[in-house]
């Protein structure tokens, strides 16, 4: 329990009895938001599953044309960023301001690395004419329309994921400023905790995007 009267007046809003209750309410609220996000991305995953079922051979071919090594590297980058994020949350729980700032910076850097690799990958798609549009062409199939459907979904899903990463980087920057201003104490570090939940959630979306978009038809060979 937060016994320090001073810390309580700073951190505890009047509608809550205890700091613990306040924190539980914030965590629950964030999870409710994340559930709406799961349903949002879930709809796209479902759409992808159905179209992959209907246009199977072409979707498998298009999927195998993606760069699996780059996808795997980016997955590792994101998992590392989740690791530094959880260490940032831990540092804030223990009131270690310097460690918190360092881990937030590391998380931010890894987030930018992920987006950089993503940009490189998208650029590759433009060069290979794998972007849906008049100049689209996927080698090895006559069904260019179905192939464009795959890449439309690819860009929509990775694009929305990247947008969430950009927002996540914004949240990290804000947390960094707040941490710098000594706004967080072991009694009040809810923003770091909730920001961490968001960051890990975006990681989980990628954990599913990576195998479903890049891997599952790899064994068929190109």
């Amino acid at each position, binding site marked *: *329990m937060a016994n320090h009267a001073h810390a309580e007046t700073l951190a505890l809003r009047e509608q809550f009895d205890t700091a*613990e209750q306040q924190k539980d309410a914030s965590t*629950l609220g964030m999870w409710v938001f994340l*559930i709406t996000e799961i*349903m949002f991305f879930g709809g796209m995953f479902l759409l992808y599953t159905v179209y992959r079922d209907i246009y199977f051979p072409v979707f498998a071919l298009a999927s195998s044309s993606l760069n699996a090594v780059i996808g795997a590297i980016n997955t590792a980058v994101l998992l590392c960023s989740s*690791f530094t994020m*959880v260490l940032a949350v831990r540092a804030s729980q223990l009131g270690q301001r310097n460690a918190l700032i360092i881990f937030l910076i590391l998380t931010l850097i890894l987030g930018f690395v992920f987006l950089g690799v993503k940009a490189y990958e998208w650029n590759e798609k433009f060069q290979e004419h794998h972007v849906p549009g008049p100049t689209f062409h996927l080698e090895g199939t006559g069904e260019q329309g179905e192939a464009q459907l795959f890449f439309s979904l690819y860009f929509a899903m990775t694009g929305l994921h990247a947008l969430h990463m950009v927002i996540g980087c914004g949240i990290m920057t804000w947390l960094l400023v707040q941490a710098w201003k000594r706004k967080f104490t072991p009694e009040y570090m809810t923003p770091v905790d909730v920001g961490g939940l968001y960051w*890990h959630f975006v990681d989980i979306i990628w954990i599913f995007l990576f195998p479903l978009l890049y*891997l599952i038809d790899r064994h068929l060979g190109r």
Partner: protein
Amino acid sequence: MSEHVDSVRTYTAVWLVLLLATGLTTAVAYVDLGAFSVVVALLIAVIKMLLVALFFMHVRHSTKLTKLVVVGGLLWLGILITFTLADIWTRGLIGTPGR
């Protein structure tokens, strides 16, 4: 606060397992498992999700209400996917008059 502070050791172990699982899922993708390729890929993804949610997102230390909301959310996602696929996959099984 009745905060649970996990050790750096625990987090490091989870992180290493996650990286290992990423390598595994990438490598196994090139092995021809037929229809099981999807099953294995999804199984590894679900394990990774559980590790991130339980350890990094502290679900294992969360209140019962939060746990209920998380499980409830996944249940609704399950309904969305199951019912839609039940429709898509069974179309054409029964001859529909007039089609």
